[in-house]
């Protein structure tokens, strides 16, 4: 549905611009929540249901709440404003617009169908739309293929013949688990309660 896509895309882009433009950190957090929620809507429209749900749960419901706590704990005085000078803002905005123009012209200069055929021909993989798989992802029911993929099985790819058994994503999954443990221990140690030192 193109209208839903337009709504979510506009909300995401305008929310991101509002994050850059806002002067108060709390308003930036609000616009970031709007932007990331709209990105989750875009994920749902792109048949990525599990990724969209994870985005809402972990990003909006976890990381952004963490950022809001950080804003609360590092709050400055009620009349103090931290602002960038207008010259810096203009230079940064100009460079950002040039960067966006460069990226967009690169995107629109590529023929994605031809590129897809070239990639399929170069790697020798069959077209995913014609492979006999266990579950098709076309309606967004990606939970079972994703669960199998992080366990190391790829039934969306390997059912037709015995060749090309892909390794799946078990190793990155385990690495991410250990990484999360290490990061949380480190963050808890870094943020432990210490005696606040006065500024010299």
């Amino acid at each position, binding site marked *: 549905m193109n209208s839903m896509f337009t709504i979510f895309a506009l909300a995401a882009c305008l929310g991101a611009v509002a*994050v850059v433009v806002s002067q108060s950190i709390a308003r930036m957090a609000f616009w970031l929540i709007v932007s*990331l929620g709209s990105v989750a809507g875009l994920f749902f*429209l792109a048949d990525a249901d599990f990724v969209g749900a*994870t985005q809402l749960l972990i990003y909006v419901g976890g990381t952004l709440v963490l950022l809001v706590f*950080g804003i609360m704990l590092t709050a400055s005085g009620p009349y103090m404003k*931290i*602002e960038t000078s207008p010259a810096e803002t203009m230079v940064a905005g100009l460079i*950002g617009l040039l960067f966006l123009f460069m990226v967009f012209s690169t995107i629109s200069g590529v023929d994605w169908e031809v590129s897809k055929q070239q990639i399929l021909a170069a790697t020798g993989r069959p077209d995913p739309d014609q492979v006999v798989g266990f579950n098709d992802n076309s309606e967004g029911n990606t939970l079972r293929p994703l669960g199998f993929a992080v366990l190391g099985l790829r039934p969306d790819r390997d059912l037709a013949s015995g060749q090309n058994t892909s390794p799946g994503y078990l190793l990155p999954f385990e690495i991410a688990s250990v990484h999360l443990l290490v990061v949380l221990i480190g963050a808890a140690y870094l943020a432990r309660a210490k005696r606040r030192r006065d500024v010299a």
Partner: protein
Amino acid sequence: MQPSLENYLLVGAVLFVCGVVCMATKRNGIGVLMGVELVLNGANVNFVAFSKYSALGLDGQVFSLFVIVLAAAEAAVALAIALNFYNNHLTIDVDRGNKLKG
């Protein structure tokens, strides 16, 4: 009419550029972290778009899941660093962190 690949990529590009400008211009340390989150979300939109519209298939969505997990972990550590900065300088203004200036 369905949205095409370029529409998704444009949204991802706008998110990325806004994140980079946010990282470059904000003096509040938490503002810089918000720019990082925007950058990672722009990359995630790209991954999911290519997962749907090209031969990438399921791999794009798996990778975007890993990006979300790692972004959450990095936000936790970055916030711990920001709290330490605030405890030492009594301000979250990153321009005050100039003790190593030559």
